[in-house]
C-alpha cells in the first residue's frame, strides 16, 4: 500500500495525479505530472477478470489494467473512487471496493440502475472497460489510528466502505476497536457474503448483521439499521462513526449517531452525486463550494453541515 490518503485535497495515492498552483507556476507540463494528470479524461483500458453475482441487482467486477505498468503502479486510498465506463455507453463513478493492498486487480461493485450500470451488468469475462482511478479524497484512516471505528452500512453502501473496512482489518493493531453493523432487506441482499463469513470468524472485531424483517433460517439481528444501532448504543468515546447506505438509511443513522452523543466531527459518510468528469471541472457534483468528486466523496458530518441543503 502506497502513501495513505489523509482526507484532505492532497490525500491521494502514490501517483501524482494533480498539479498544485506551485507546479503550474514552476512550468509543470503534462509529462511531469502523473498519468491521470497527463490527460485525466483518457481512461486506462482494463479487462474483466471475474464477475461475482453479489445480490440479484449487484455484481462485482474484478478488473486488470491491460498496461502491466499501470496495474503494477496502481494504488489508492481507502474510500477513493474511480470512473468505470464502457466505451460507447459512458462512465459512472463507483467506489473502489478491492483491498488497498490488492495488487492483482481492481474491483468495483455495481448496482443495476441506469444506462451505464445496465451495460456493465451485461459484461462478460474478457470484455474491455475503461477506468479512470483513483479519484477523490478517501477516509483519513491515518488520522484515526488509536481510535475505535464503528461502521454502519446497508445495501450497496457496503461497496463504498468495503476497502476501508478491509484496510482497518488488515491494520487491526492500529485501531482500538472495530465494530461493523451491516444491514440488508433480506439475507440474499448482503454483498460480499463470502467476506462477511470471514469477518464472522474473527474474535477481534464486533460484527452485527441485521435484516429488515425476520425470515426463516436467519440467526442474527432483525430490525432497521438505525434502530439496531440505538439498541447497541455504542459509546462515542474515542470512536469514529462511518455510515453509508441508501439515502434514507444514512439520514436516520446520522440522527441516531447524534442521539448516541457522537459529534459531527467524529461522524463520517460518503456522498454520491451524478458525476461526469470526476476531476472537479465539469461542475455538476457540487454541493455548495464542495465538489464531491475531488473534495469528497468522504465528508464529516461537520463539513456537511456547512453546505447548502442539496444532498
Amino acid at each position, binding site marked *: 500500500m502506497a502513501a495513505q490518503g489523509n482526507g484532505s*485535497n492532497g490525500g491521494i495515492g502514490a501517483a501524482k495525479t*494533480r*498539479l*498544485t*498552483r506551485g*507546479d*503550474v507556476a514552476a512550468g*509543470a507540463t*503534462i509529462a511531469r*505530472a502523473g498519468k491521470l*494528470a497527463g*490527460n*485525466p*479524461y*483518457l481512461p486506462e*483500458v482494463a*479487462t474483466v*477478470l*471475474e464477475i461475482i453475482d453479489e445480490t440479484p441487482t449487484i455484481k462485482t467486477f*474484478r478488473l*486488470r489494467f*491491460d*498496461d*502491466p505498468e499501470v496495474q503494477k503502479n496502481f494504488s489508492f486510498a481507502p474510500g477513493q473512487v474511480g470512473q468505470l*465506463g464502457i*466505451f*460507447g*455507453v*459512458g*462512465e459512472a463513478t463507483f467506489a473502489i471496493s478491492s483491498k488497498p493492498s490488492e495488487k*492483482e*486487480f481492481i474491483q468495483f461493485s455495481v448496482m443495476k*440502475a*441506469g444506462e451505464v*450500470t445496465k451495460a456493465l451488468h451485461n459484461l462478460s*469475462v*474478457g470484455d*474491455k472497460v*475503461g477506468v479512470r482511478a483513483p479519484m477523490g479524497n478517501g477516509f483519513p484512516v491515518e488520522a484515526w489510528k488509536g481510535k475505535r471505528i464503528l461502521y454502519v452500512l446497508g445495501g450497496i453502501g457496503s461497496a463504498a466502505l468495503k476497502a476501508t473496512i478491509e484496510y482497518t482489518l488488515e491494520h487491526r493493531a492500529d485501531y482500538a476497536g472495530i465494530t461493523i453493523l451491516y444491514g440488508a432487506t433480506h439475507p440474499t441482499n448482503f454483498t460480499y457474503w463470502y467476506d462477511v463469513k470471514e469477518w464472522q470468524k474473527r474474535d477481534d472485531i464486533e460484527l452485527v448483521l441485521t435484516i429488515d424483517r425476520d425470515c426463516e433460517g436467519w440467526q442474527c439481528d432483525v430490525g432497521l439499521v438505525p434502530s439496531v444501532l440505538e439498541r447497541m448504543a455504542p459509546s462515542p468515546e474515542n470512536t469514529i462513526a462511518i455510515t453509508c447506505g441508501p*439515502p434514507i438509511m444514512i439520514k436516520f443513522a446520522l440522527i441516531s449517531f447524534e442521539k448516541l452523543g457522537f459529534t459531527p466531527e467524529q461522524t463520517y459518510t460518503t456522498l*454520491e*452525486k*451524478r458525476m*461526469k*468528469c470526476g*476531476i*472537479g*471541472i*465539469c*461542475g*455538476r457534483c*457540487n*454541493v*455548495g*463550494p464542495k465538489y464531491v468528486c*475531488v473534495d469528497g466523496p468522504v465528508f464529516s458530518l461537520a463539513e456537511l453541515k456547512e453546505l*447548502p*441543503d*442539496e*444532498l
Partner: protein
Amino acid sequence: MAIKYLKADALPALLEALAKNARVVAPFKRDGVVQFEPWQSGKDVELDVLLAKQSPKEWVFPQCETYLKFGYRMEEPAQGATAGTATGAEGEAIGGEGAAAVAAGAEPAIPHETVEVEALNEAPAQVIFGLRPCDARGFVQMDQVFGGYGGFYFDPLYNSRRAVTTLLAVTCRDPRSTCFCTALGGCPAGQEGVDALFTQVEGGFVVEPLTEKGEAVVGTAGGDLGDATEAQAAEANAVKAEATGKVDVPFALEGIRDHLHDNIDDPGWHDLCMRCISCGTCTYVCPNCYCFSINDELVESEGERYRVWDNCFNPLYTEETSGHNPRAQKSNRFRNRFSHKFWYYPDKYDSLLCTGCGRCIMHCPTRIDIREVLRIMGAAPGAAAERAATTAVTPAATGAPTGAPAPTDGKEA
C-alpha cells in the same frame, strides 16, 4: 512596450497577415446577428455593436468537443494464452488473491473483442480579434479551473488551445447600461488576459502590445503599424477614461461572498427565480460559465466520447439515476449559478467567475438581472428583504444610465 497606431483601413491587411499563420476569429454580423466567426478576406469586422451575442469562449472551450475515439476489434488470442490474460503483455502466473480470478477466466482461448482508444486534442494557433476586455478577462477567470490551480486537475484540452491563442481586445468606447465591469474590478480598457489592446481613435486604432504574443502581432503587421503620436496616445487615454466613467456600479462587491453564504436559505431566492424559465441562455452567452456534460456515441463498432456545454439550470443536470435530484427546485438551480460565480468559485480559485459583460441580462428571455440578484441576495441578511421590497416597486432603481429618459408608466388603453 511602444504604443503603436494602426489606420482603420489597414485593419484588413493586418488580419490578412495574421491569418497566414493562424486562424483569425473576429465578430461579424450575419443576418443582423453579431457572432465570433473565422475571418475571411473581404468580411468586415463588426465593432460598432459592443458585444457579440456570445462571448468568444467557444473558440478555446468549444461547445462540443470529441476527445476520445474508439473502435472495437476482434483479435485472435496469442498461442497458449487464456481469455483472462490474452491482451496483457505479461504472461506470468498470478498468485495469492488473484488466483481465483484467473481460474475463473481460464477458459479455452477464443477470438475476443478488444478496444482501441485514441485521445484527440485539436489546438490550431489562433488570434481572436475584437473581443472586449471583459471577454479576455473571462478567459483568465476560466484559466483557474482548467489550469489545475489550487491543487486540482490540469485540463489538457482547454490549455492546449489557450496556450496558442492570442487575444487582441478592443476598448469599449460606449459601454451599455447593462455593463458593470468596473464593479468587479474590470474596466472598458482592462488589460487582464489581453495580449494587445486596440483603442479606437480618430481614423484608426492606438495599439498597445501588452505581452510577447502581442509584440508578435506588432511584428506581423510590419510597416502598417507606426508609432503612435503623443496626441493619439492622449486621445486613447481620454477615450478610456470617458468610457470608464460611463459604466455603472450597481452594487458593492465587498461582502457579497459572505452575504451569499449567509442568505443561502433566504426565501428571496425563491422570489427572484419565479420568472426564470430554466433555459441555459445565460450560461451559453456567458464568457466563463464552463460546466459541461460528457456523452458517448457508438455506431456499429466505432464510437467517440465528447464533452458538450451543459448548464446548471437544466433540471437533468443533477438528476441522479434513481430519480433523486439534489437541486430539484428551480430556486436551488438559480441560486447555484450566482453562488458559483461569487462564492463557490472564489473560495476554490481565488477568482470571481463573472466579468460584468451583462450578456446574461441582455439575452435572458425574461431579462433576469444578475445585478438585481446580487443587490438583493448579496446584501446583509435583513437588508436583503428590505432591498427586495424596494426593487419590486422600482425595478430600474439603479443602472439607469445618465441622460436616459425617465421610465414611462403603462399607457392608456
